[in-house]
């Protein structure tokens, strides 16, 4: 007699599955807990953290936005290796508007998000028909090309970049703006993916010919997803420009492309929440490891490998499964 592990939904999950959940505090807590508690905790964090860790939280939120943007694209079947393109484009657009025209950050950030997103979408439009690794390669190359373009032509400050950007009016506005944007993107786009529109996006990833066969122009939908994702990334880049009060070639650095992917993989792709959770683990981890000096990247790499091997589904999906289901061993006839 052999045994196998069986997963069964918890009673409370079944009881919370319909409108009758509203009759019981326990069921309502079960539903609201995983949503409300993290939101409250994240909103409280800036109040209890010192200035250094507040800056780390800024970084976490920025990478979480980039990871959400990556995950959204991945859900539509576009694997991007170049989130730095979105980040850098937003950073340069806001930098130019602020440096040359003196426009205030609260205007340049949204404008840079929208127009930066549009420029990135226009740049990637010709390769939207490419699939798999071919699309990924182009996304990887574009930010690298733009770095060389800035360097060679010395436009927008060349290698020295543009300095003296206006900072945001207050530290609190800074932190709550980015944290608020992260939460809005997380819950907003999670909701979007759950709609029929989101189903079409996921359908393109699963089987694009089948979506075409429904009379749907997949390139139009891919364009929309690309614009949404690049706008999120451009927002993050524009925001950081006003935090650093500088924009230059480092905004197209590979870090902005690779770390969001690592965050989404460690956290668990496909849910956007996993990507966010991944950023909340990897960015502070990177800071903590600063203490070990030269071995930092080695330990960081080991951590990544261990996580991916031990929990290939991602931390978020693991926690979600444990929350909703229990496991038991059952005997099976061979």
């Amino acid at each position, binding site marked *: 007699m052999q045994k196998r592990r069986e997963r069964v939904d918890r009673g409370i999950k079944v009881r919370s599955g319909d409108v009758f959940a509203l009759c019981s505090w326990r069921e309502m807590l079960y539903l609201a807990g995983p949503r409300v508690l993290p939101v409250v905790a994240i909103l409280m964090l800036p109040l209890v953290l010192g200035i250094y860790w507040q800056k780390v939280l800024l970084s976490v939120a920025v990478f979480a936005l980039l990871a959400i943007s990556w995950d959204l694209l991945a859900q539509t079947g576009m694997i991007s290796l170049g989130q730095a393109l979105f980040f850098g484009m937003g950073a340069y657009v806001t930098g130019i508007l602020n440096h040359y025209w003196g426009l205030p950050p609260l205007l340049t950030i949204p404008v840079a998000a929208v127009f930066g997103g549009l420029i990135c979408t226009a740049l990637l439009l010709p390769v939207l028909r490419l699939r798999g690794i071919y699309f990924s390669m182009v996304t990887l190359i574009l930010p690298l090309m733009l770095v060389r373009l800035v360097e060679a032509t010395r436009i927008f400050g060349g290698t020295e970049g543009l300095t003296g950007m206006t900072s945001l009016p207050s530290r609190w506005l800074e932190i709550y703006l980015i944290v608020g944007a992260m939460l809005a993107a997380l819950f907003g786009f999670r909701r979007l993916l759950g709609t*029929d*529109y989101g*189903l*079409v996006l*996921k*359908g393109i990833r*699963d*089987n694009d*010919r*089948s*979506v*075409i*066969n*429904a*009379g*749907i*122009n*997949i390139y139009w939908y891919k364009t929309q997803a690309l614009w949404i994702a690049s706008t999120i990334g451009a927002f993050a880049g524009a925001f950081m420009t006003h935090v650093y009060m500088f924009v230059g070639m480092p905004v197209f650095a590979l870090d902005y492309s690779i770390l969001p992917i690592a965050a989404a993989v460690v956290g668990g792709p496909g849910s956007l929440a996993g990507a966010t959770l991944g950023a909340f683990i990897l960015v502070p981890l990177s800071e903590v490891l600063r203490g070990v000096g030269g071995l930092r990247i080695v330990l960081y790499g080991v951590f990544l490998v261990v996580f991916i091997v031990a929990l290939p589904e991602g931390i978020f999906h693991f926690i979600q499964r444990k929350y909703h289901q229990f496991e038991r061993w059952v005997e099976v006839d061979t």
Partner: protein
Amino acid sequence: MKSTAILRVTGLFKNFGGVQAISDLYFDLAEGELLGLIGPNGSGKTTAVNLITGFVKPSTGAVVFKGFDITGLPAYRIVRLGIARTFQMVKPFYQLPAYKNMIIPLYSPRVKKLVGGKYGDRDAVALDLLEEVGFERDAKVAYKVAAALPQGYLKRLELAKAIALQPDLLILDELFSGLSLAEVAGILPIIEKLRREGKTIIMIEHRLKELFRIADRVIVLNYGQKIADGRAADVMESAAVKSAYLGTE
């Protein structure tokens, strides 16, 4: 030749490199007709369907649907004009429950245009459509993910997705392939019902017995060329068809 041709194919050629997949294909299809498209493996049946539905562009020739020249139009635009097809190799969204697979065709601009604005609860419409093609509502099979469904249900799902588009011309590419006799017997009445409702249908089939029971007319392809066109009984008497299927001594 009937004057009420819903589909007119003329002088269609397609070559892939040195291979002539379709050579001078021509036929008219009358509204409400059920046309069987048969031929040995590799004779160009699926290529012909791909050319009509826009998934492959023809080298030369013309496809006219309801009076519009649709030659070379993108596939999604041809679907919007009213041609829906199934695929020989089923193409479900494996990660989604069967009824959620139906949401994407129900989200189609064609359906929106026909129904007018919002459809309302697409889930409910999806479940109704699935029931029509044999997803028993009591068995909850419509709620299973497509990856867990047997081939018979996947074929029914493929058919339901095409029907959801309310097409004027339905093309079924080897719907019966890989199915047991019992499964075919379960799907056949659905096609007969569509036929009674006046739907124009093209069926590519290898299951000739079942096809001949319902087809008005049969076209036989061999090496990309039409070698016979007519009533099933007459076509199978043709020497060219016998030679294509059985070979020559």
